[in-house]
């Protein structure tokens, strides 16, 4: 058995944030689908998408959605990797790598959103 027993702050915080982001995703993804599929037939046309993403309220909404989706995805990936013997042996590397991937995904998406 592993002798590691020190209280990890990352794990409970990551667990709570995974639940919170999961709940927020239900709200934001529903909103996204409503806007893209229920409002008008042209909502997915290129010009419409660009125009929508240039509106400040949608920019904020998609920034938040990007943040919660990227965190939820890479934190989930981290949890899956830590479910394996190899993952637990390389716990610090897995934690660092997945958090870096989250930050890269978020900031790259943010750059695309801002540069539209």
């Amino acid at each position, binding site marked *: *058995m*592993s002798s590691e027993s020190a209280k990890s*702050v990352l794990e409970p915080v990551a*667990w709570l944030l995974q639940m919170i982001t999961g709940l927020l995703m239900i709200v934001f993804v529903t909103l996204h689908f409503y806007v893209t599929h229920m409002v008008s037939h042209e909502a997915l046309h290129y010009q419409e998408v660009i125009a929508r993403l240039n509106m400040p309220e949608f920019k904020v909404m998609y920034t938040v959605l990007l943040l919660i989706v990227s965190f939820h995805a890479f934190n989930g990936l981290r949890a899956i990797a830590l479910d394996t013997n190899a993952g637990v042996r390389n716990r610090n590397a897995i934690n660092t790598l997945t958090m870096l991937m989250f930050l890269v995904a978020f900031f790259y998406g943010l750059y695309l959103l801002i540069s539209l």
Partner: protein
Amino acid sequence: MAEFKIRRFDGKKSFWQTFEVPAKKGMTVLEGLYYIKENLDSSLAFRASCRMGICGSCAMKINGKPRLACETQILFLGDKITVEPLDNFRVIKDLITDFEGFFAKHKAVKPYLIREDVKYEEPKELLQTPEELNEYYVFTLCIKCGACYSVCPAAATLDGYLGPAAMAAAYRFCADSRDKGNEERYEIASSSNGVWRCHLAMECSEVCPKNVEPAKAVQMLRRKTAFSILKSILRW
């Protein structure tokens, strides 16, 4: 007659062997195994002790599901019975699996009352209300048969994972009003091999022969552990 198809292991290779057992009403799978051992093949190895669902020794995979052989009647399952050793345990011989790691994990969560004022020379009665007893009573029913551990997907991929039985035992004592060792157990439960690895498949509760609901215990322990750590960070 019932057909017993048993997955055997001789220390080197695993193979299936079939036996014909005369089954009658009320006869259990364990009695069927004893019939085989006494009349057909004395080399068949399995664990059993109390024969009444208390000791947890005879847990094995019967028709694809972990059950207690002593509490499973042959005729309830039909005339074809498949018997295998429990999953997620190393097989020693035939239906006997290695429980050393399982018991070590159970011991690791300190499954006993922790108090500073316990003096064996001056025993003290520790009073408890029925409501306080009900907080943990169901979790005291665990017989450590290993059925929950054998179906746990987290235990299948991570050798060091504490598992549902150990964490149910940890929660049982954390929820006991007489116990003062919560912080010690939260520390153990919050390790990388603890509560965070559970994905709530809930199979452990599904197969528990005593309806202990280890999945519920793990979730309760996870919540208590998370809030205990967050409280200590925020210095509440």
